[in-house]
């Protein structure tokens, strides 16, 4: 593991706290009936988004999935605009046109999330192709779940990135289940990263509950991509603590299995690491969590105070120019 500064690690800790607390807050708000729509929570997988995005530059891009909150926050989308989007307000990062499954902000390199499983993979390769043609040195990190590796779009998108040495890193968050279906029931391989062999690109599997391990692996892959070495497939072994979506009561897996994974929780794990190194005290870490809670309270007020779109705004933003639609 490379040496990291205290500031880097503390920032990763704060980012994971921001995602965890955001998800817990929006879950509560949903259960209270204060938000429309559906919800795919990222709780448990924070080390993946943070480890990846900390390895990217501000002008690099990510593509995301139907479970995008953590990715967007890690890449720098503000909690205000995230919360406002979930509240379907005009100040949301998609102006109320996208909702939970499409959060993102082009200003910080977070592509409006693509909620079709695997659908973002050819798009990510295309973005990387565009950056390569424009010689901008930008890199794309393409998030996907374990389910995506069985989509045809995965094959076509990864293969194109491979044959053209495109600057993209494919990040597969293997959280063990596609909705309720266990991954071992739908893939014959030991490790999903073995898929990479079929495309002639490097594939590695890392502990997705360890933010520093994810960061190390992805930083190397980003470096390789940026300097013309082509794509890498990084599998992060992780776990979502919650159901697939808001109605999922997780009857397909045991509470014991869940407890085992929670023992590996990435947030206390990094906290312990920081304390062991003498880089942060318990009080300092608690202060960070409190600051995040305050930031979240502010985001909630911002979202609630923001205006809703007019009903007829649904007729806008279909084309680049305003067209009279009915």
């Amino acid at each position, binding site marked *: 593991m490379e040496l990291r500064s205290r500031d880097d690690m503390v920032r990763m800790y704060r980012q994971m706290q921001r995602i965890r607390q955001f998800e817990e807050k929006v879950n509560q708000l949903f259960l209270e009936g204060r938000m429309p729509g559906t919800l795919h929570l990222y709780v448990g997988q924070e080390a993946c988004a943070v480890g990846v995005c900390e390895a990217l530059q501000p002008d690099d891009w990510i593509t995301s999935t139907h479970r995008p909150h953590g990715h967007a926050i890690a890449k720098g989308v503000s909690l205000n605009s995230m919360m406002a989007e979930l509240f379907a307000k005009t100040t949301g990062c998609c102006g109320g046109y996208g909702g939970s499954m499409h959060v993102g*902000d082009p200003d910080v390199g977070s592509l409006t999330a*693509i909620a079709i499983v695997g659908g973002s993979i*050819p798009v990510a390769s*295309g973005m990387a192709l565009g950056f390569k043609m424009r010689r901008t040195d930008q890199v794309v990190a393409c998030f996907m779940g374990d389910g995506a590796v069985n989509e045809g*779009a995965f094959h076509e998108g990864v293969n*194109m990135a491979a044959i053209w040495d495109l600057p993209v890193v494919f990040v597969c968050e293997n959280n063990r289940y596609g909705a309720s279906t266990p991954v071992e029931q739908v893939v014959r391989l030991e490790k999903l990263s073995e898929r990479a062999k079929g495309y002639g690109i490097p594939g590695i599997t890392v502990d997705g509950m360890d933010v520093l391990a994810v960061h190390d692996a992805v930083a190397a892959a980003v470096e390789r991509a940026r300097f013309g070495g082509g794509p890498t497939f990084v599998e992060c072994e992780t776990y979502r603590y919650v159901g697939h979506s808001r109605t999922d009561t997780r009857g397909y897996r045991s509470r014991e299995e869940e407890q085992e994974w929670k023992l590996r929780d990435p947030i206390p794990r990094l906290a312990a690491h920081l304390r062991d190194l003498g880089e942060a005290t318990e009080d300092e870490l608690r202060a960070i969590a409190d600051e995040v809670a305050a930031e979240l309270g502010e985001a909630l007020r911002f979202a609630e105070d923001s205006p809703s779109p007019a009903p007829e705004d649904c007729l806008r933003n279909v084309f680049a120019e305003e067209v009279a639609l009915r």
Partner: protein
Amino acid sequence: MSAPTIETRSMTIAEALREAIREEMRRDERVFCIGEDIGIPGGFGGAFTVTLGLAEEFGRDRVLDTPISEAGIAGAAVGAALAGMRPIADVQYADFLFCAMDQLVNMAAKMRYMSGGRLSVPMVMRAPCGATTRAAQHGQSPESFFIHVPGLKVACPSTAYDAKGLLKTAIRDDNPVLLFEHKLLYGSKGMRAEKGALSPVGEVPVAEYTVPFGQAAVRREGCDVTIVAKLLMVYRALAAAKRLAEEGISCEVIDPRTLVPFDVETVAHSVRKTERLVIVDECPRTGGWAGEVAAEIQEKAFGCLDAPIVRVTAPDTPVPFAPVMERYYVPDEDDIVRGVREVLRWR
């Protein structure tokens, strides 16, 4: 005062499309071509020769050959467009658009909307359509599927002038545009020449021009019946109109040129004059473009209609192979003449 003379040259639709691409690639370095077999040395220059010779001028990085991966091609075009490029993507047959449907319908068409207007997908998808004795999976006219997708524009050039002008407009448009090109209208030469092709050669100005979207062209003026037709059907409608004129029946033939946006006003204006409408379409009948035009016109000009609107379309079957069956399947001059007589029965 005499009209200024415009210097023109004769060319086929394939040549006109190629010239549009060449001019736009010279004008804007963001424009590039991506597709199967489009730039391979010794290859065909795309299935119908449109990109022939472009790789020699612009290099194979800007005339980018892909694996056989239509979803990948469409997705790569979406992504490259999001990253600031202006891709012209290419599928060999419009039938293969179905392989790319998710990328076109869920991504290309919706990224702007889902982002609240913050993203643009300025891409062109070119697709050769039309029945040409290649049967059910290489002869479809799937335009109607795409007019049903909000966020996509759909252009259907039937002349060399329009092919060049519409493609240039499509490349410069900030929205995803599908350009349907009829295989019997290309005028492709040599090995890729089509049996039974109409291959209309048209005059194309030497000077720079574009053809705006949403402006229909009146191909023939008339006062008894309005015929709306696109692509190959324009020529069959014109042939029918000519035959009917010998009997003293005067048909106005309108070519919409773009289906989205659709110039309903030009059609409605014509129908207010003729009071009768026949729509000709190579797409299958049910849920098709012809039905959509009929609905628009009965809403806009019901009071003017003296007869029910007649659709002359392909039947609700896959495209057959046997030439005798295919000839029955695709609307022809006789079918259109019958359609016109049908609306004239209502006096």
